[in-house]
């Protein structure tokens, strides 16, 4: 754990192991995703052609809420037992450590959705040829959501009730990701090129990678004060 890279991976390993130990936690977003997608179908017309029309929207909204669900716990435990304060005092760059926490969060909450998504895509009558776009859009979009969500999570640490507040802060920031992610899948369904949307998703991810770590560190320092 001497180099920043070593610290990064050590922290990722620790967080993933912790999440794995509380086995429920790793499955919650996935189970929520299943339920949410089913609710979408139950709330509308089960006609396969209609389902195909709303498939992109329901998959993306379900993914968004599944991510949101896990945000509050991202720093909460480490905040309570002072691990976070020590982390920020460590000699390694704080941004790297924060990125490690976000990456671990994504491995636990975003990555499982990627594995499950094709299954639900089939249930929603999403055409097979649109699956690569669905997976790529989720691959680019969910890490960006984890990054922005981490910022919201860090900002609400000092608040007493953070559940609805966190959603209120983070959801508006998710709008571009939702629009381009869902737009990419819709374009793919109708056989159009989704390159523009993917480029935007990639740009948003890069921008989030560049800017949010500094913001998250600042937010954590404010909350710890």
């Amino acid at each position: 754990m001497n180099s920043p890279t070593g610290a990064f991976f050590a922290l990722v390993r620790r967080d993933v192991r912790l999440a794995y130990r509380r086995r429920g936690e790793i499955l919650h977003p996935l189970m929520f995703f299943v339920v949410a997608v089913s609710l979408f179908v139950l709330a509308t017309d089960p006609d396969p052609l209609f389902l195909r029309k709303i498939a992109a929207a329901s998959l993306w909204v379900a993914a968004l809420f599944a991510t949101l669900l896990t945000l509050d716990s991202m720093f909460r435990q480490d905040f309570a037992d002072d691990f976070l304060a020590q982390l920020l005092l460590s000699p390694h760059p704080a941004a790297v450590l924060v990125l490690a926490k976000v990456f671990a969060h994504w491995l636990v909450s975003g990555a499982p959705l990627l594995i499950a998504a094709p299954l639900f895509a089939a249930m929603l009558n999403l055409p097979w040829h649109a699956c690569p776009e669905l997976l790529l859009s989720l691959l680019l979009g969910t890490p960006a959501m984890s990054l922005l969500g981490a910022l919201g999570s860090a900002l609400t640490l000092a608040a007493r009730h953070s559940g609805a507040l966190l959603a209120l802060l983070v959801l508006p920031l998710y709008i571009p990701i939702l629009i381009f992610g869902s737009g990419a899948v819709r374009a793919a369904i109708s056989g159009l090129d989704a390159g523009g949307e993917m480029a935007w998703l990639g740009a948003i991810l890069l921008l989030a990678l560049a800017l949010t770590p500094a913001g998250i560190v600042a937010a954590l320092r404010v909350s710890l004060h």
Partner: protein
Amino acid sequence: MSAPHSSQPKRPVSERTRRHQFGAPAHCYQFAAQWAKWFGGGALLLFLVGAYGGLAVAPADYQMGHSYRILYVHAPAAWMSMFAYAVMAAGAAGGLIWHLKLGDALARACAPVGAAFTVGALVSGALWGKPTWGAYWVWDARLTSELVLLFLFFGYSALANAIEERRTASSAAAILALAGLVNLPIIHYSVEWWNTLHQPASVGKFGKPDIAIQMLIPLLIMFAAFKLYFFAAVLNRMRCELLISERRTKWVRALLHG
């Protein structure tokens, strides 16, 4: 309020830092009152002139008839909602980076006023939409962006009020305001991109070159009125914010006794 005593030991502070630290809020508190009155009076005057010009003097639009007169409140409100966000972000940056107490007070004061402008723009836009599109709401790109802006104002206010310790709350909300500022252009572009698939003619889109001069002058007057109003309302609100955050300082106590 529950803990009026600070437990931290007092440290000797030079006279200069003392003036530097408490001077600004106390001075601002006093000057804000006069400036708010002047700005408020000017805004009222300009508003009356502009409304008269827009409602009575300007001719009816050859396409939209009299309904276009909503422009005179809709456009300034929409423009000022974005201006208010920019000022809020600037104040937030000042409070966060340079620990300016006035910056925090400014940012906190901007949020409700900006939200009011946003609501005004949304309501007047919807009322204009009904005769133009036949529906109050059609997910027009501008109105949708305005709606998202309202969410951002809500988020700022919610965070600023959810954290007990006031400086922590201000700093956290300031970070959120700056994150929103970076995000706003992306949100705006994405909403516009999303909307191109189904584009209704946007409300407030005028044939810009041939807008009649009688139509343009009241609009400019209304813009000026809204801007003056904004400063007046924000100064009034800043005085409240300063009283709350400075409640334990000497100058506030002097104010209460004097």
